[in-house]
């Protein structure tokens, strides 16, 4: 790996107050990620994977240490700046797709572009292109409850990719999918990673996902116990 990292983490701690002291969900994490990495945080439940993903995604605040994305220290960002970072640089894929059920697939995918105040014609082109990419052009007018789990997750991927984020954070993206859909979704993400040079960071304990990763970081009790390159 070489060049300025897109994400760098130094001496990161995340603690939660508990009766009789603090519980450290993450302890002394030091990591960095380069552009276009396809990496994953793996480990058992409670190891701190999602907490780390949330901290990188500005969805939560670190207790100590620093996280930099594109050179910006997240701890220094105001609420508004953090929201702007999520809007422009970051994309999230959740375990349950988190699509808004009253909106059509098209409207769900269009939403990030509305937030970014894109022109209507540009929005339309981008949404259709992204839906074509994930193979959902025939589901434009469908609402999430009318789709299968795999289709929903692909729509969620489209919602993330439509704005072309630099980093995609995916928290257990295949947890609710069967094997066939899992592979389909992972292949889509891998393709986007290779074609658009988007950095993907997963949180998972699913072997199917782990097999696709280029880099596997194993967490246990809030600490990194292994950081290995694979599939190269």
């Amino acid at each position: 790996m070489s060049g300025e990292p897109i994400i760098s983490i130094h001496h990161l701690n995340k603690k939660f107050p508990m009766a009789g002291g603090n519980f450290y969900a993450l302890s002394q994490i030091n990591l960095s990620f380069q552009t276009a990495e396809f990496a994953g945080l793996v480990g058992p439940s409670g190891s701190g994977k999602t907490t780390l993903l949330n901290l990188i995604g500005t969805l939560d605040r670190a207790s100590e240490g620093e996280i930099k994305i594109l050179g910006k220290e997240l701890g220094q960002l105001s609420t508004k700046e953090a929201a702007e970072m999520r809007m422009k640089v970051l994309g999230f894929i959740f375990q349950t797709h988190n699509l808004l059920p009253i909106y059509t697939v098209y409207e769900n995918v269009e939403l990030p572009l509305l937030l970014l105040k894109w022109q209507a014609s540009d929005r339309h082109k981008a949404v259709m292109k992204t839906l074509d990419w994930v193979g959902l052009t025939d589901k434009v007018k469908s609402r999430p409850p009318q789709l299968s789990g795999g289709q929903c997750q692909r729509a969620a991927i489209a919602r993330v990719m439509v704005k072309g984020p630099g980093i995609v954070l995916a928290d257990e993206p295949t947890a609710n999918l069967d094997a066939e859909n899992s592979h389909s979704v992972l292949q889509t993400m891998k393709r986007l990673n290779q074609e658009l040079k988007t950095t993907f960071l997963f949180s998972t304990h699913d072997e199917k996902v782990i097999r696709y990763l280029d880099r596997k970081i194993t967490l246990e009790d809030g600490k990194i116990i292994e950081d290995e390159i694979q599939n190269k």
Partner: protein
Amino acid sequence: MLLVRLAFKNTMAAGVRTWLNTFILSLTFVFIILINGIHTGMYLQIVRARIADELGGGQYWHADYDPFDPFSLEESHAPLPLSLQNSEKTVPILVVPATIYPHGQMQSVVLKGISPEQSILQLPTSSLKRSAPAGTIPVMIGMRMARDFQLSEGDTVAARWRTHDGAFDAMDFAIVSVFKSDVQAVDQGQLWIPLENLQRMVQTPNHATFIVLRDELQILPQEASWQFHSLEDLLADTRLLVESKRASAVWLYAILMLLAMLAIFDTQALSVFRRHKELGTLMALGLTPSKVVQLITLEGCLHGILAAILATVYGGPVFWYLGAEGYPIPVDTEQFGLALGERMVPVFSVGLFAGTFGTVMLFLAVISYWPARKIAKLQPSDALRGRSY
């Protein structure tokens, strides 16, 4: 604009719950506007009638005149002051207590002397110029007086009064006309008689008890024994009466508003509680927590806008019809002593619509913001986990 779009979509997606809340809120709109419109219409109707038939543009009263003290009437008159002798702009009225004997019964009444030529009050005083049978004096009475004493046009009735020096005198009055007025204060227990006749009867030439003005005078003549009463003074009792009715209706508004606001607060609180994950997703997409609070508040306020539209759809034609045609007032209402006539015409002003809308929207904004405000302190990760604040 995005927030408005999202809020509208979310509100519409709530389906029956939205429309139930909207309907209740629209009832509140319609009720508040209707009752306020009736009160305003009532006030204006009474004021118009009283100005036309009773008050003119203000009055000068003899210093001792008290319309609520019949014992003071015999003394409360004086010669017309020179400064107020203007037949174009003033109508002097002499008030004298008397007794009449309709159908053999004795009834206390008030004789009011007025010039048959006057044009300031809309009473049909020209009818006093009609000829009366020999030995009688022409008088006119109101319909209520005629009904209560079973008198009608063409009847004669014996009357007795005291002259200025205290002697009793009596004569027959011929009823030359029965007029209709919405103002009971010019009707019940009163007989209108040509001023000069009355002045002669009580031997007080050129005397008056009060003087009605055409318009409020720019320069008020200062007369020691005459006090000016502006329209504002003379209408104070009417204003107080309507204001007291308005105040009593506030309780009804409050109850209706409370019901509507409770329904919307409940919906908003439930919505915030149930939609944590959705709100967390919006934050993950880049909405700041304060924008999410704005979204929820906007959704609440949209109920108000939808309610206003719904109220316009079914209340608008009702307001339009009532504002144009009014509605008949039950005969019994006459006993309340209000100069309302036979139909009540509510008055719905732009200010009333705007004021009601603004007030309801203000309450809605507060009631919608209240359950949403704590979202601003919530970390997006907590919202995504569906964690409560």
